[in-house]
């Protein structure tokens, strides 16, 4: 093992630990905030008992869930059933590896970071369907099938939306894109025509990817009881639950990096700006979540294929045209 390999491994492990723990901690706080926020939106108070103003509620949740008995249905495929939850957690965290939290804090500065993010994000459907199929439960099966239906729908708009910053910055590396924005302008701000719609497109696809309302079709608890997690208890359910939040958080971070200039911002260190932007997007996901009803899976398909896909392609070429023909756009 040569020193370069060693240092890369250590770098990845150290920053990986930091990033993972930071993501999990901020999710714990995010869950607390979401519950308070949702409570206020619904004229309720939200959690108050656990700790000051209910701050320890997520901790209580996790401890409670971990204590639960582990029940595996008799008819289930035990191997797949047990493997799916940790896989979901790993895949949802994996995308955070290439997200630059500041100019320095990045676990792995891949030069094809965007492709990596898309690939890992697309992998999420594997544990989801694994869980749905292995539970041998009809609701879970329907959920798993819906998950695939959903992933073939939002996939293309997601790819096209991410392509817009790639075209504009001319780089596939996430930190490269952020660098370009830091020296020029944020893509959500300028060029206004492809930039902002591309962000919205990305946002919608991100909602779909992390199974958030209005696209929480695979788990649709009013229709499919709990969807893919119907048969899961205790720690395994916790992992799915966590994966969902991690996915949203990492998705928000990616959106902040790709469209809102990542760590770029005045007056404060880059890390602060990145965290602030990520949290704002994260919160907005919950704002949307507690305001809307969900689509049906065929409607999502319709929406993605008939409206968002052509829109995404159009945006990519608008961006390309901007790069090509706008005076100063190519620099």
């Amino acid at each position, binding site marked *: 093992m040569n020193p370069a390999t060693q240092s890369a491994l250590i770098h990845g492990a150290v920053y990986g630990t930091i990033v993972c723990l930071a993501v999990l901690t901020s999710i714990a706080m995010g869950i607390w905030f979401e519950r308070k926020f949702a409570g206020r939106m619904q004229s309720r108070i939200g959690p108050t008992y656990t700790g000051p103003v209910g701050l320890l509620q997520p901790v209580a949740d996790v*401890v409670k*869930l*971990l204590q639960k008995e*582990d029940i595996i249905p008799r008819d289930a495929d035990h191997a797949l059933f047990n493997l799916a939850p*940790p896989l979901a*957690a790993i895949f949802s*965290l994996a995308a955070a590896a290439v997200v630059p939290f500041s100019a320095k804090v990045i676990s792995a500065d891949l030069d094809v970071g965007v492709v990596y993010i898309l690939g890992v994000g697309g992998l999420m459907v594997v544990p989801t369907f694994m869980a749905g199929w292995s539970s041998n439960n009809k*609701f879970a099966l329907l959920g798993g099938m819906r998950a695939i239906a959903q992933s073939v729908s939002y996939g293309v708009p997601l790819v096209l939306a991410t392509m817009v910053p790639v075209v504009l910055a001319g780089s596939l590396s996430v930190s490269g894109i952020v660098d370009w924005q830091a020296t020029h302008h944020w893509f959500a701000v300028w060029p206004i025509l492809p930039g902002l719609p591309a962000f919205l497109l990305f946002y919608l696809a991100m909602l779909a990817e992390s199974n958030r309302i209005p696209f929480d079709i695979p788990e649709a608890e009013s229709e499919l009881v709990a969807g893919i997690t119907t048969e899961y208890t205790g720690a395994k359910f916790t992992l799915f639950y966590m994966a969902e939040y991690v996915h949203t958080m990492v998705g928000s971070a990616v959106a902040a990096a790709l469209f809102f200039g990542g760590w770029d911002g005045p007056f404060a260190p880059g890390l602060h700006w990145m965290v602030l932007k990520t949290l704002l997007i994260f919160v907005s996901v919950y704002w949307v979540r507690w305001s809307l009803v969900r689509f049906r899976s065929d409607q999502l398909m319709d929406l993605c294929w008939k409206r968002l896909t052509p829109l995404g392609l159009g945006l990519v070429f608008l961006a390309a045209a901007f790069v090509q023909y706008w005076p100063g756009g190519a620099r």
Partner: protein
Amino acid sequence: MHSGWLSVFAFLVVSSLIGFGLLAASRVIRVRSKSDSPLKHRTYECGEEPAGLAWMQFHARYYVVAIFFVLFDVEAVFLFPWAVVLRELGSAAFVAAVLFVVVLMLGWLYALRKEALQWQ
């Protein structure tokens, strides 16, 4: 060049530690039932006796869409390298890509007219 991927590998190891670590933690602290009822391990189907297994032929109604998905993802694979080097290649590359996508979108339009993108 490869160092990034090594870091990703290390990151994945860390994240799987978290994933499996939670499972291990729960093994330690979770409750174990003293009496085991066979009902507990029955598949949930709204409290009724399940009508057969869920492992059955399932009519997934979106395979045409799935094929389209593959098609468009391949298209994206082509477009990503184009997007990175667009600046260097100039208008010719732009026009070529536009033509490529126009042809693709003609197919999309055909599918749309044939209602292949409908949930069947």
